[in-house]
């Protein structure tokens, strides 16, 4: 409603109009919910995308590391053979050189090319050598490659050191005695006295001081990210109503002007609460996510839904067209998701980025959920993130309602 028409309205009509605001807003909210449910493309945003991404990301995160793929020249002597066998023993996929090795390395289809110096057989006499290791300029596995090569090299050295110690102790031993002793050394090393038992810690346990990894990170992260993306639909609905003239026609109806904004926001917030509930159910049943106390989880979740729906109103206020709004929301959602800890545990980011995250609603949404999921937090602890999220919602609505032009 324009300022002029508001001024022209008699006081009693204005009061009646304001009194009817909640019921009008609720009616519009219900309309908004029905409209969204009737449109499959919006249901994709609301449910399909978060489910697909949570599932795919959870699968990736629980995957074991692949073999380290190394190119090694054909062994020319016993020490080179020993190096190759130790690399295989350490779990490497050892491949012969190929004319395409450099190209495969560039495309990360190989992890390293090892250059063995000609003097490697001199290691028997303790002559030091350097293995040349060519890594991919865009590879992500340099840490694994180097630790695997370091381990294999150490094991080669250990075997050679044992043999040299034997030789040093037996200057007068005959060939038969030495061969027998070498065989014994080798047999002993093949049957180690020390067994290494590797066990994975149980980290996904509800309780105090538990880390956020796997589905516990990806499911809430993707849910919150797509909730914010869906929240931008509030803005698209408002823009579309303006473009198609729906808003102008509403002025002919006895509906208060703010009801359209309130109705759209409330309707979308309701849908977002449904989305979060569906994701909790899906995460628990399919992905094995442990959400903790559901009543407490609902507090930050509902606050986040209100914030996300209000974000749409804010987006509509600061953009002029649907295309601008799409670009704006895509930029904001992706950047705040990355910095706010929805893509990866916030602990892996540098300290300055963690400080920046405190100013983002995405951080408080994720923090609120993880307080309940991973730390077993109580009502007082989740109240802070929920209050901050509601503060963001209020600020977004204030800007949205002031800047959005109904004319």
């Amino acid at each position: 409603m324009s300022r002029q028409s508001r001024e022209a309205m008699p006081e009693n009509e204005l009061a009646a109009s304001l009194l009817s605001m909640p019921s009008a807003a609720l009616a519009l909210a219900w309309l908004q919910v029905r409209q969204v449910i009737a449109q499959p493309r919006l249901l994709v945003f609301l449910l399909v995308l978060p489910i697909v991404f949570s599932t795919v990301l959870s699968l990736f995160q629980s995957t074991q590391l692949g073999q380290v793929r190394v190119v090694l020249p054909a062994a020319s002597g016993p020490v080179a053979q020993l190096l190759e066998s130790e690399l295989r023993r350490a779990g490497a996929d050892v491949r012969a050189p190929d004319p395409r090795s450099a190209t495969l390395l560039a495309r990360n289809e190989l992890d390293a090319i090892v250059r063995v110096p000609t003097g490697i057989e001199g290691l028997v006499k303790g002559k030091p050598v350097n293995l040349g290791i060519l890594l991919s300029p865009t590879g992500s596995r340099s840490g694994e490659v180097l630790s695997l090569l370091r381990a294999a090299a150490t094991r080669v050295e250990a075997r050679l050191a044992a043999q040299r110690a034997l030789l040093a102790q037996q200057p007068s031993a005959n060939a038969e005695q030495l061969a027998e002793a070498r065989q014994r050394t080798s047999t002993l090393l093949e049957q180690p006295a020390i067994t290494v038992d590797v066990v994975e810690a149980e980290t996904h346990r509800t309780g105090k001081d538990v880390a956020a990894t796997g589905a516990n990170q990806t499911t809430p992260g993707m849910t919150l990210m797509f909730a914010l993306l869906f929240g931008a639909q509030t803005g698209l609905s408002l823009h579309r109503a303006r473009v198609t003239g729906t808003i102008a026609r509403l002025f002919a109806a006895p509906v208060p002007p703010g009801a359209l904004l309130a109705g759209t926001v409330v309707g979308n917030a309701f849908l977002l609460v449904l989305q979060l509930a569906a994701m909790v159910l899906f995460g628990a049943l399919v992905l094995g996510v442990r959400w903790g106390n559901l009543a407490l989880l609902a507090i930050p979740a509902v606050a986040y839904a209100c914030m996300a729906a209000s974000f749409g109103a804010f987006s509509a206020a600061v953009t002029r067209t649907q295309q601008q709004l799409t670009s704006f929301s895509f930029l904001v959602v992706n950047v705040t998701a990355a910095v706010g800890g929805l893509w990866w545990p916030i602990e892996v980011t540098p300290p300055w980025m963690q400080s920046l995250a405190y100013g983002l609603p995405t951080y408080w949404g994720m923090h609120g959920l993880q307080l309940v999921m991973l730390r077993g937090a109580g009502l007082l602890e989740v109240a802070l993130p929920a209050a901050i999220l509601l503060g963001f919602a209020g600020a977004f609505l204030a800007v949205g309602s002031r800047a959005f032009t109904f004319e």
Partner: protein
Amino acid sequence: MSLRAAALIAGRDLRSQLRSRSFITQSLVLPLMLTAIIGTALGGNSKPQPAAVALVGQESALTSGLAKFLGTDQAAAVTTTDEATARAGVRAGKFQAAVIVPPGLQRQLSSPRGKATVTIVTDPGSQVAAFTVVQLTRAYLATIEAGRAAVLAVAQVRQPGSAEELGKIVASAQQDVQADLAKPDIGLATSENAANSGRYFAYFAIAFGVLFALLSAALAAGGLVDEIERGTLTRLRAAPVPAWSLTLGKLSAIVLTTAVQLVVFTLATHFLFGARWGAPSTAAVVIACASIGAAGLGGFILGVAQSHEQVMVLTLMIVLLMSLLGGSMWPVESLPGAVQVLSRFTYNRWAIEAFQTVSVPGLGLEDAVLPLAVLLAVGLAGLLFGGLRVARMTTE
């Protein structure tokens, strides 16, 4: 004349895109911001962070040697603690692994039949760190085994007549092995194939460039869907321009928009962040093929979407899924084997491979023939599909 008309239409559409704030935000600002954020967040340099390791065990030469060995080249940052704290620390994410050395290990090893078990508790969320700790711990224990094997072998060869002589032999052999292993004989000299200073950044610069090329093409095609929705494309039938010329112009605009986005992105990442994309001439060829490939997706969307909202949903679904599977969100080599095979069906995988190949000194276009051919084939097929719809709209 008709080609000139097509060029004019393409140029007009391109200018319109470049003046659009949406295009600048989505295709230039967002990719640069995300590349910088991800490059910073995930390390931004090639040196891996030391693994946080808790070491449990009685103070001895073995445990101090293990701590020193794990700390070599900053592979791990070792904290000595008790077992309960170590296990709780791994659960809490404070430690990425805990190495638990049983009490009396050295005493057990002094017996020829002695056996012992070292336990390594790992955080499933820190697989690379766990891999490093397991590898290095096993290697260090191999050196202990070597000393033990040498002692036993020497004792067998020398066949000492008394306990005193045996003691001397054992001490001497152990000393020999420890002195020998104190200074490593095998050095690891690493070098990279290119001068890119940060692997993660170098990778993500390419990966995000490809992702946003796809997005630019999809949005440019979305603009054409808007024209169809508004009816402006149909009205162009009144103009004295052949339908094929109009179609060619409109499709060329999608390719050009994507190419401009890629050129600006490569230049910006090169000058702002030092990313390397190869020699300018080879990079230009790859950009051209990658633009046609991405425009193929735009053509597909153009062929099926009926409204702006459908463009948005299809764009998000296709771009994000292809990016997830094709290596734009994380390196393909870190994905499971089946997903790596699946990634061959994505635009991102082929485009990333083409850029990776030509970015390495010594490799050129001849090494990237297959990915470039795939990009061209996919692009032309998609453009043909979308072009048929545009042609239909301008002739019916």
